[in-house]
Structures are given as C-alpha cells and as structure tokens.
C-alpha cells in the first residue's frame, strides 16, 4: 500500500499580509508503488525517478493538465543479488540521482547503474563496484559521481573511463562507520558533506587528502539525509533517526541581535563568536573557530519518531517523519 503522491503546498503568491500562509497542503494525485520508496528525484518538470526496495527503478510522469500520475518507464531488476533464490532475488535500490537525461542508481547489491531516460537498457553497469552496500550517490561533475557505502568510504567514479574501479577512495579515520548520505556544495565542487550512522557530519575537501576536513558531532542516531541549500549554500540541513532536523548556518552576515531575541521555539547553539568578517575561503572548510561562527538550530520542537527525508528550495523546507506526517515550512529564513 505504498504510494507516490503529488501534493500542492499552496501558492507562495497567496501569502497573507504578514507573510503567513493560510491553508494546508492538499493531495493532487497519487499512484501505487511496488515496494518501499527508498529515494526519488525530479528528472525534469514532469518526470520523477523513484528507487524501490524491490530493486526496480521507475520513471513516473505527472500530467499536470488532468492531475494524474502514470508510470512512464520501468527498469526491473536494476538491482539484484547473485543468489536469485533468496528474497525474490531483488536488492533494494538505495539511491538515485538525475542529471537530465542521465540517471545514476546505486543499491544494496553494490552495483552502479547508468541509465538514460529514453533508453530501455542500462547504458552502463558497474557490477560489484563495492563489496558493501552503496547508500547514496550524487553527481560531482557531469561525468563524475560520488558514492558512499556501509564501510565508511567515499568514492569518486569517473564515468568516462571504462574500468570498473573508483578513481579515488576517501575514508574516515578510526572506525569505519557506515555513511548514509552525501551532498556536494552547489558552487564549490570540491566541498562534499557526508552523514554517518553515528550521526556525525563530515565535511571533505576532495582536492586534498583522503580524510575529512572536519567532523561535526551532530545527531544521536543515523543521519539519513544531508542537503546544502541550492541557492544559499552557507546553509546546510541534516535529518536523522533521532527525530531531529538541524539547520547549519555558516553565513557570517547574521544581524547583531543576540541569539535569545531570535524567533522563539527553537533551541540554538553557537559554536563561537566572531566579528562580522566574510572570508574568501568557504566557511565550511575553515577550521579556525575564532574566525567563523556556525549557528546550529533544531527545527523540530517536539521530536518523536525519525525524520527520514528532507528537501529544501528557496524559503521552503519540507520533511517527512516516521509518524506518517509531512511538514512544510515556507518561511525558513524569517
């Protein structure tokens, strides 16, 4: 009884006098989906690529004229295990990333698939790319991808090369804690953020070294997703199994108001104070605590169950929890 649903969160133009939005998100259309939805992403304005726990990757099309969804294309058994007898042979597809028309998927079978939206078969498949589960994938450049796996490794794959080896492997020092999510800085392509099973946020500079630049102790349980804000990358968002969603803010042009005068209901913590001094090097890479300050805010007042997924665009933040609820925050930077 899993479904893919499209909701309307309302027109931003309908905001009232003081910017408050009135009205709840309402369901436009939905369609049944086989298996758990492990990951999904918009391919373009109308199409959505969905990764399933059965190992199938499906493209759904949203018909905006009559508000329906239909399955456009399906790659069955995109991910599967060697032993076809166990659990129907399908392996969960854990991550999908799109760069129209290319689609890259990774799964529990350690396989990387490269699809093109209009082609029936996979363009390229790297079998046994990893001996453990690949948890997430994202594009580094148009021809390079980043993957993270369950033995704590961040790998760069160059899709131009035909060999089935990563071009670079990064790993955490110390315990090989599994990494669950990865995201790349929108503008500065050498800055990568990953989240681990112990809730730790790691920032990597992939130009140098094989170890992270900074490790930030964040959540108390698995960090499921990490996202840089696409247009305002001084802001980072992470969500976790412990039920919290954190907003990491390294922008240094915060107004001079002290923290307790900020909008109430949120707990804030400062790492350190500083003068308002914008440095050229991204605040994410700097490890001089006296120069930069990072403000971390938990956006969920009464946390109970896990926050599994989030997305952010402009002033809007949307996240979903295990309590079967979706929350939309339309005034992120108010």
């Amino acid at each position, binding site marked *: *009884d899993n479904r893919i649903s499209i909701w309307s969160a309302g027109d931003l133009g309908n905001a009232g006098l003081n910017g408050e939005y009135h009205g709840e998100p309402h369901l436009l259309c939905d369609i049944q989906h086989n298996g*758990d939805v*492990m990951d999904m992403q918009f391919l373009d304005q109308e199409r959505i690529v969905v990764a399933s*726990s059965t190992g199938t990757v499906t493209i759904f099309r949203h018909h905006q004229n009559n508000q329906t969804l239909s399955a456009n294309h399906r790659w069955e058994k995109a991910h599967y*295990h*060697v*032993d076809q007898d*166990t*659990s129907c042979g399908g*392996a*969960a597809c*854990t991550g999908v990333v799109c760069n129209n028309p290319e689609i890259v998927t990774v799964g*529990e*079978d*350690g396989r990387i698939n490269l699809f093109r939206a209009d082609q029936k078969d996979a363009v390229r498949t790297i079998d046994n790319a*990893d*001996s*453990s*589960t690949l948890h997430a994938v994202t594009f580094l450049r148009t021809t390079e991808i980043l993957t993270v*796996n*369950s*033995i*704590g*490794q961040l*790998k760069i794959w160059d899709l131009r090369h035909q060999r089935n080896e*990563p071009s670079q*492997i990064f*790993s955490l*020092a*110390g*315990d*090989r804690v*599994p990494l669950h999510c990865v995201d790349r800085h929108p503008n500065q392509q050498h800055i990568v953020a990953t989240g681990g*099973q112990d809730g730790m946020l790691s920032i990597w500079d992939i130009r140098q070294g094989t170890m992270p630049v900074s490790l930030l102790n964040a959540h108390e*349980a*698995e960090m499921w997703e990490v996202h840089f804000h696409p247009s305002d990358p001084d802001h980072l968002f992470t969500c976790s*199994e412990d039920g919290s969603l954190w907003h990491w803010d390294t922008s240094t042009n915060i107004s001079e108001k002290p923290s307790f005068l900020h909008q109430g209901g949120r707990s804030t913590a400062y790492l350190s104070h500083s003068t308002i001094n914008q440095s050229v090097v991204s605040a994410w890479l700097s490890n001089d605590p006296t120069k930069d300050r990072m403000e971390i805010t938990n956006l969920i007042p*009464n946390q*109970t*169950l*896990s926050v599994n997924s989030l997305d952010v665009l402009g002033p809007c933040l949307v996240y979903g929890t*295990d*309590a*079967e*609820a979706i929350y939309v925050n339309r005034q992120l930077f108010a």
Partner: protein
Amino acid sequence: DTVPPQVVPGADPSARQLCFAWGPAEVLVCETLFGRAGGSRSRCLSRSPSPSRFWREGRAGAAARALTGSVAGTGEGTPSSSRVFVVRRDQDIYIQTLRKLFNESHGIFMGLQRSEEELAGKSRKAQLVQVSKNYRSVIRACMEDMHQAAVSTRDPALQGQYSTQVSILSAMELIWNLCEILFVEAAGAGPLLLRLLDWVRLHVCDVDSMVREVLSSESPSKHKLFWNVVDVFVLQGRMDEARHLLSKEASANPTSMNMYKILDDLMKKMPVPSLGNTQTLTELELKWQHWHEECQRYLQDGTFASNPHMESICKILLGDEDAILEKKELMTTWYHFLVTRLLYSHPTVKPLELRFYAQSSMDLFLGGESSPEPLDMILMAAFEFEMHQVIKECSIVLSNWWFVAHLTDLLDHCKLLQSHNLYFGSNMREFLLLEYASGLFSHHSLWQLGVDYFDHCPEYGRVYLELHIERIPLSTEQKALKVLRICEQRQMHEQVRSICKIMAMKALRNNRLGSALSWSIRAKDAAFATLISDRFLKDYCERGCFSDLDLIDNLGPSMLLSDRLTFLGKYREFHRLYGEKRFPEAARLLLSLMTAHIAPCSFWMTLLTDALPLLEQKEVIFSAEQTYELMRCLEDLTAGNPDKQKFQDDDVERTKVEMLRLALARNLARVIVKEGTVEGS
C-alpha cells in the same frame, strides 16, 4: 453473558479435525487428514468470556473479517484439498483511513507521558483536559476523512464499511466526551449541567437538517416544522435561538403578542449555572425556585391555553416529564432526555446524583419497547461513575484496543484508577496498552508506534518488546537499521546480536562480504568476522588473488575485531609491501605473522611458500635469526603433522617442503657469511 462462538469460515470442524498454532500476532488453523468420527459439531475457536484475550467481535460481526488469507495445499489421497488459514485478530490496523488516528494519538500519548507531573491542582487538570480534547479532535478529524472517503467512493461495499466506521468513531467520541466531562474535568454541580448541555448539542445531530431547512426558508414561521425547531431549541436549552424564532412568529401573528411577550420574558429570565464564580449554588437554587414558581403561575392561570404549542413549551420549562417525553422523536436518545430533564428540574444536579436520574430517564424513554443497546449500557456505566465497567464494556464491544487503551491511560494519569491488579500481575492500564501495542506489531509499518507504548509499560513492556522486535520482517537494510537502533537504545544486546547475525548471513549468502563485515562490526561479533575472513582467505587460495581489495585495504581499526581479520589485513599488507618492493619490511611482517600465531595453522604452508621468492632474491633479506625462525616454523609444521603419510604421498607437498628446506639452508649459508664479514655486520 452468552457470547456466540466465533468460527473460522470455511473450516468445518464437523468434517475434519482442525489444529492450530499460536503465532505472535496470528493463529494458524489447518485442517488435518483425520476425519471426525461421530456427528457432533464441536466448536473450533470459542470465545472465552473473560475480557482478557482475543477475538473481538465488532459491531458488524467480525468472523468474516478475521479471515485474512488461506493457502491451498493438496491433501494426500483425498480429492479435497486441505488448507491453512491465517487468522489475524486486529483487522482495524489495516484500514487506511484509521492510520491518522493511530499516528496522531501516538504523538498525544507520548506528550502525555512526558508532561510534567509536578504541576498540581488546577493547572494539571487543565493540562489533562487539553490532552483529552486533543484525542477527541483526532477522532473527529478521522471521522471527517472517513466521511469524505465514504462519499467519494463508488464501491458500495467499501462505502458501507466506511459508514460503519464513521458511526463507530462517532460513538467513541460520544463516550470519550462524556468521560472527559465526568472523570477528567470532574465538573461539579453547576458547570456539570452546562457541559452536559454542550455534549448533547454536539452529538445529537439528527435534527440538524430540519433546523437548517426551517431557518433557511423564506418565512420560517409558516414552515410546517417551525414549532418542531422551536421545541428542539428549548429542549437543548438554546434559549436565545428559540426566542429569536419565536419573535418571527410573534411578528407574523400579532394576536398572540401578549402570550409571546410573557413566554419570551420567562425564557430570558431563566437562571442557568455559570462557569465563573459569579454566584453560588444556593443563590442559583433560590433564583431558580422563584422562576419556577412564576412559570407555574402563568401556566395555571391559563395564559397559554389558546396556543397549545406555547403551552407545551411552558410545561417543558416547568420540567414536566410527560410534556418532555412527548417530544421523543426530537430528542432521539434517552441521554438527551436526561439532560433536558435535569435542565428543567434539577439544574444544580451533583455528579453523584446523576446515576438515579440516568436510570430513570432511560427507563422512561425506552418505556419497555426497546432494550438498551451496548452504547446505552456504556453511557449508563459512565453516569454511574463505574469507570471499570465503562472500560470493560467498551473492550467487549469495540473491535480494537485503541479506545480503551488510550482512555485508560488518560484516566490513570488523572489518578482515578486504583491499582486494580489483574490476576496475571500487571494492572489494567498496562494490560490494555500491551494488548494495543501487540496489535500494532503485526503491521509492517505501525510497529514503530508500538515500541513507544511498550516503553511505557513498566512491568512487562520490555519483555513484550524483546519478543516482538525479533519478528519484524527485515526487508531492507534501512528497516534493519531502524530496528537495531531501537534495540541499542534500550540495551537489548541479545536482539542486536541476533539481528546483525541474520543480516550478516543474508549478506554473506549474497556474496556481499563488505556488508557482512559491516554488520559484524556493528554487533562486535568476532566469530562472524572470523567466518568472513576465512571466506576471503578461501577465495584467495582458490583464485590466487584477493577479491574486494577496497574492503581489505581499508579495514582500519575494525581489523582488530578478530584475529583472523587482523591476519587478513596484515597478509594483504604483506602483498602490498612486496608489490612495492619493500622486501625487508615484507619479510619482517611475514615472519611476525607466523611467530605471533596470528596466522591459522592451515595457512602456514602458504606463508612459507610466499617466503620462497624472498629467500631466492639476489640480496639477502632474512637475517640469521629470522632464517632460524623460519626453519623452526617449517619443522613445526612438518613434524607436528600427525598424518605424515600426507606429506610423503603428495608429491607437490613434498617438493615444496624440499624446496623450502633447500632455500632456507642456502639463505642461512649466505647470511652467516654476510653477517660474519666485516661489511655485513
């Protein structure tokens, strides 16, 4: 009370013997090959009359619903097939529209458990009343959704199901609201009546459409149902609305202006209890008595004699039971009758006096024509302040533990339930929560809510959780991780180990050695890590090269989890050093692997064979000490082998040993010379 036996449809106990097995959330019933001798029809699954376990018969008769699936198998010899039935008890959790109820109420429940106990008196009561209101608003929201679903669906069976659900939810909200007034808020004499009036107004809505119709017509006073609507308002104590309508009648009918004015005045002056502390009960009683006498006078004077409608209204105002009973169809229920009676005869009724009025109201209203329904009995129990009876009756009637579990928990927080020990140890609140949560666990997704409920059952919660959590099907790694996190947070180490082992075995079977290792690390399972390393080493021996180098090269501190794993890592390092032509270091490493006994005995031969190329190098790599060590290892290996036959018969083995001995001897010779000379030392 006689309870009809519940038989699994399709399973005929008179034809075949049936056997059954309990599962954690289901019962498996299967037909056996043994035919039944004799014709007696015996009951297969009979309902136990005690409220403690099982098959709830919902208002619609749950037998058909309980059957969720059957697997057809072929019987031996006989032409009919034997079947296995899966009988599941909690069907309601699979109703899509009720999921909101379960999820939201979980949030409210958690909030209540975490709320501060230190607040005392009024603020705590206000907090608890708010919680109760929250629960009710969730029920109402669910009713809305269910109603929408019923209206929009085209399938009549589904529509029927939704409509039934709406009426069940409505009944639940009715009962909860009454419990809130009587138990949680514990309204005292005075406010009690006001709350009851609100309650009746909210829940008796059969007359709403009639009211709307009359109000929206052009000249309401000419409408044939006009007086009915006025009566409804009066019966529900909605004086202002009644007066407003009457004024329309008065303006249309000037002859009755005089009567109207008097009636209007009486209605305006009627004393009602107030919520604030503006008047004491005695003051109210005095005023009311005075007003009552005034009404009496007007009636006896025949003021309203010419207008029977107005006269009946006056009689109602005086609390005349017969007059009120005449309007039975407008009240529709006995509890409406009760509240109207109280409004017009005993507005300062005390909570404990309710029971008498309730009983007599029900008797008068039903009048022996119809017998009370379960809902009536529950409400009666509430009016009698028999909380346990309410809970018991609800448990029997409702098909799901949701209602009683949450209500009992709330009442427990109000400190209203004595610790009423049931004969198997836990108290009622805990028992109901355990049953409810166990029901949740049979759902593939709602089990997560069940975890929190078990957490708040101090006596048996943990045990139940331990048993249930191991049975959740782990279809994806993410689900396994969630389950693991729950176990780790509660220090359930046994379960952690068992789940990690399951996942690791699955991974191993699928040849995902890295995943398997990752699971062993999580569980700190040294034995499994050893198993995985052996698998790697076996692969190496068979293929001559390592698979999954990305894993072995990057083991890091997890290498120390098991000796075998350490060996694997170090052995790979040896190969790397050799590849990088760092021979002395490689040699030292190789030797340490053997002397430190990290290497398994079975591997020593391979290690010694690896030493061969190092021994044969132009440059002398092994020192004398090291060579002696190697020789000793070789001797240990060949001497210690009980089955000397193996070495003697196997040519390859013998050649290897001979070559090794030769190489070692040669190396020894060279190194003695080298170390003996001046440059060498």
